[in-house]
């Protein structure tokens, strides 16, 4: 699965979790919390959606790896291999 596709998967989940957020100019390297009004419950929502949609289990110690779009892509890339 390509990076753009993974990026889009994360953005799709964020659009569900934070429906008011403007996702048109999200910068890949900047922490999501600095760009969007996301709190700890939102990150739990993101983790939950990854579990429900892709059966990916993100252990608590790996939560920091979901900090930015770029780190999400790097972290989720290997786990999303095999998904269409």
């Amino acid at each position: 699965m390509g990076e753009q596709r993974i990026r889009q998967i994360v953005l799709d989940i964020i659009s569900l979790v934070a429906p008011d957020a403007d996702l048109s100019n999200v910068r890949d390297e900047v922490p999501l919390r600095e760009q969007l009004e996301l709190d700890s419950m939102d990150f739990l929502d993101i983790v939950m959606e990854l579990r429900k949609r892709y059966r990916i289990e993100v252990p608590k110690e790996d939560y920091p790896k979901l900090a930015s779009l770029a780190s999400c892509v790097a972290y989720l890339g290997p786990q999303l291999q095999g998904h269409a």
Partner: protein
Amino acid sequence: MAYTDRVVITGVGLAAPNGNTPEEFRRALLTGVSGITRIEVRFMGPVLAGVCRFDERKYQGAKERRRGTRAGATAIYCCHEALQRAGLPRERLHADRVGVFLGITEHGTVETENEIDVIRQHDYDTRCWSHHHNPRTVANNPAGEVTLNLKLHGPHYTIGAACAAGNAGLIQGVQMLRLGEVDVALGGGVSEATGSFGIFASFASEGALAEHEDPTKASRPFDLKRNGIVVSEGGCVFVLERLEDALRRGASIVAEVAGYAMNSDAADPVVPEPGTVAACMRLALERAGMEPKDIDIINTHATATPVGDEQEVIAINEVFGDCETVYVNNTKSFIGHAMGAAGALELAGNLGAYEDGLVHPTINLTELDPKCAMRNLVIDRPQRLAEVDYILNNSFGMLGTNSAVITRRYRG
């Protein structure tokens, strides 16, 4: 502060199946507009229900709504609308002196059913059970969501009082004002019952769920062919203030709370007990310093179950049977049973009588059950009275909880 402090209603906000404002609601009640439709409910298929159509996003962001509950959204809408009508925008409120007291019949059933459905789709993997479930289902949820939304710092909680809860929320607000705990009380009730298949299924199993080919004719209190309850959702919140505070700020006064009472049947889980119901109404009258003949309108609780309606009629005839100028109506015939919101909504639907002098009718009463005969039962068309000064609003609930609230036209 004294128990005798006079407490007044200075604003009303509501969401009913047939109106999103007090004015729309009143108009519907005076023109015979039902709010009942047929909806699809999980596992049940098509059922009759009263569903509200207020704009959830008027006072709430999409994320806030997603995290919260329908009852919370309803409460937030009603509180904003009530405060606006009271002339108390958020910036004029002393946030630590405003309390939120909302009656609920139940809360959390909808959210629990939803989560079970979610994990069912994931092989009952409980790791897919939402972390939002607990904040959504704690019993104070609807009132708490209001405080989060409006940034209020006074006390908030819900009052579980089955279907007497709407009155109980208002009563709690009055009591907290008289205790001096708050300066503004947001009191009333909410219900999200139409989101729960279990509530419909339980009434169906009890043989108490209404059915009619025409949804608008399904809720038929006192009618010989009544066959049960129409489950509805809704909300209604009153802004309550001590009279002196309301006068000081030049508020427009909708009505004064003249008296109230709550008591318990201690008899049957579901069937009301006429003796205790009569005692409840008498206690409310006594506290208001009134005689039964002083009441102009009795808004009945009757839900259109065969037994429940009869029991209330026995109680009303016992207390008011000799009163020639007491008129009786029923709001559930229009909106079904809005559960935790019912008492507050039904009172709100009648407060307009202080302005227009009309008793809204009971609809769908084509053949009066002789066991439900009452003097001056207003049927089909509004009844004009020379003047309306006092309204008594009944609301009863399962496990034998009874409530009666009396309001008075404010005359100074």
